[in-house]
């Protein structure tokens, strides 16, 4: 497995290089002048001389490939450049925001898995009962509601009505609760539906009927076989959700003042902060690929019949 992982990581290099070129080109082609944006952020008038000076300082007057290779060589040495907006190094900002995002993504995934899988299994076993129907209503609703609405409803309920949490949360464990819940609700719905469908499908398989006929205990069938065989698709959907969460929880982060990478990416795009956008996209792309790799490897762990090759 180590050999497989090493091979995949080596294959990552050209992919990442292609991503750097793509991101850099897209940023290069995007209309707008970061130097002008920086100088006019207070709304004043800019002279051509001032603009030329700022562009030279930001390195924007250099040819495309000079700028690109300088950026790539910098990354290789661990230097992602400095932010155009505040001139601070990009990497520490990125890592700090990424830490917060990962914390939120992992917490919400954990919470979702812990709640959704038992519910999914139970609803499969109690198919078409009142409990199943109630869960169905909740999961459909949870799936259909946009994240920002869930976030605002939670804030209204917990902060304004119950007053259990402050609206102005900090990046602490308590401050993490509501954003985690906001991200978890749709995930719980998806995971529960997926688990239910998989378990139901497995329960209809011939091997389950055979095991029943041989008098194997229900819980043994359920946990050692049915659930185990359903794990593949559950892992797929969980990894997919983590990937979405890492880059896509912008709204939730903004509403709850969570200093994650999503809100940082959005503000850097609107501020034409190219080094920060490029660095963020590169880091996110790398993470996506690594999660893919881990997902593939986990398939092998749960089912040895799957060949890593």
């Amino acid at each position: 497995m180590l050999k497989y992982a090493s091979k995949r990581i080596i294959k990552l290099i050209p992919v990442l290089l292609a991503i750097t070129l793509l991101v850099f080109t897209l940023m290069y082609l995007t209309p707008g002048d970061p130097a002008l944006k920086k100088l006019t952020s207070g709304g004043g008038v800019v002279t051509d001389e001032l603009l030329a000076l700022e562009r030279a300082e930001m390195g924007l007057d250099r040819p495309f490939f000079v700028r690109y290779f300088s950026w790539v060589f910098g990354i290789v040495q661990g230097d992602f450049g400095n932010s155009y907006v505040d001139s601070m190094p990009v990497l520490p900002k990125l890592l700090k925001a990424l830490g917060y995002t990962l914390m939120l993504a992992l917490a919400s995934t954990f919470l979702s898995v812990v709640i959704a899988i038992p519910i999914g299994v139970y609803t499969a076993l109690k198919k078409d009962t009142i409990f199943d129907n109630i869960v169905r209503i909740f999961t459909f609703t949870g799936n259909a509601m946009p994240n920002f609405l869930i976030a605002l409803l939670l804030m209204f309920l917990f902060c304004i009505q119950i007053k259990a949490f402050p609206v102005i949360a900090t990046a602490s464990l308590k401050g993490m609760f509501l954003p985690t819940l906001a991200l978890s609700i749709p995930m719980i719905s998806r995971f529960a539906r997926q688990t239910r469908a998989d378990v139901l499908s497995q329960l209809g398989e011939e091997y389950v009927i055979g095991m029943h006929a041989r008098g194997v205990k229900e819980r043994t069938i359920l946990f050692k076989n049915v659930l185990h065989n359903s794990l593949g698709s559950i892992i797929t959907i969980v990894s997919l959700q983590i990937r979405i969460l890492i880059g896509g929880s912008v709204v939730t982060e903004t509403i709850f003042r969570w200093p994650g990478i999503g809100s940082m990416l959005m503000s850097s795009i609107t501020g034409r902060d190219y080094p920060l956008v490029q660095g963020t996209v590169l880091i996110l792309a790398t993470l996506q690929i690594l999660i893919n790799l881990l997902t593939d490897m986990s398939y092998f762990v749960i089912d040895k019949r799957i060949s890593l090759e």
Partner: protein
Amino acid sequence: MLKKLIATVLILTMALTALTACSGTPAQSNDPGKSDPVVSNDPGSSAPEVTAGTTALGGTLKTVETFMYPSLDPVKDYYSWHSQKYGLTESLFRLTDDIEVVPWLAEGLDIADNVATLTLKDGVCFSNGNPLTADMVKRNMLRLAENNKRFYYLNDFQLDVTDEKTLVITMPTALPTLRNELANPEFCMIDLDNSTDIDNNPICTGPFKVETFVPEGDLTLVRNENYWDGDVILDSVTFYAMSDEQSKLMAMQNGEIDAYDNITATDIEIYSTDPAAYQLFSVAMQARCYMFMNPDRLDASIREAITLVIDRETIAAFMGGVLTPTYGAFNDDTAYGKSQQPQMNLEAAKAVMEAGGYTLNASNVYEKDGKAIPTIGLYCYAARNIDKIAVLILEQLSNFGIPCEIKLVEDPDGTYMTDPSYEFDICFYRMTTDKTGDPMPFIEGVVMSGSYQDITGYGNAEADAKIEELRFTVDPAKRAEIANDIMKDYYAANVFVSLLCYNRNIVMATGVSNFSEANPYEYYGVTHKTTPATK
């Protein structure tokens, strides 16, 4: 087994919930005691003057900022706009609510030709008690010149300290607007000898000093006990970083914050339903939305008619209190803002079109020589309500008989504002037109030939000559006269239409006052007279 599993999962979930609910959070501050009396729900009115002599000292003020910056160093970029709003820094001069330049840290500035003598007020000191000296002013100005490109011109100045409180500034050429320049928030003072960490804790002259600062996060300031201009009422002020408008609304309703500015039209409506708890203030800022008309693509009659068709009042009413109609680049109550553009007059617009040989056809579109006016492109971008303003103007022009369509661009500075080959009919832009109480920066940057915003090609020798005259004229009355003359000609060319000012809308809990709620400049905020919310 299944029951055990479910029980275990439930216990785990409950434990997690309990754990998160028990952890502390320093930002929590539900203050249900806040509420009550006196309502001043009167947009446009100024708060009552509160002096330390009549008001008990103490209390805290909590507010939010959409953007918090990684540093408090006022020489960087536009950070001084924020440090001044926080009550941390103060400039040498300041702009009053009526856009007049008055001394702040400075006592006065005498300008004689290219030499200016700056005198400092007695008793001004930093939060550590050290007095502000002319030498420290000089060093701060040199530091600004070194670190902020917008102030590189200071490198050409000769600064001579003649005594503790006097600085003589010799300029390469006369600069009649030096007093206005010194009202820029960047001309604030830091104790450079004792500030060991300017990014996070600069020692300044303002009524508050830094207690805690999280870069790009929250900022808490406490009273400057050595404040030079009297007692500071508040014990502390906290600025929370928060960009989501809904969250700000809920934090305000929950009593977690006491005041904030730039509230949305929807929120104005919500707050106005509870005048017992909230005071609303609205003041038109100097940031304006305006449009340029391309004389190469629109003939004079159409351009003139357009200026007469646009109904700014209706647009402002539709936008729900976030915009104020404006008919010039400068406020009409300033001496240099007396030249204004005409108000909506559909009859006059029709007459202009008819005089230009246009007639209205059966499709309600003006035509000339049997040819209908081609659809005019309104080039705009989706920021600061500019796209919405463009849509409303499209509606008004189309109803009049001038067909239009919206042409949305992502960034005006990458397209029509900078690319000479970019063909536009009408384009929109937004800028602070009067940044320091003087018309020169706008005229120099928009009207002068070859300037950044002379995108209509209006610039001409006659206007440039007047601009040169303005540049060296010291007498304010004469300056105003020249500026009005320049602007009159500019408006008459019908290439520029001033549309709407952005409002600085502020909501404050009952009891809060002196939050610079009547000042049109967004870089003023907390002062030593700011009072806390009523408990």
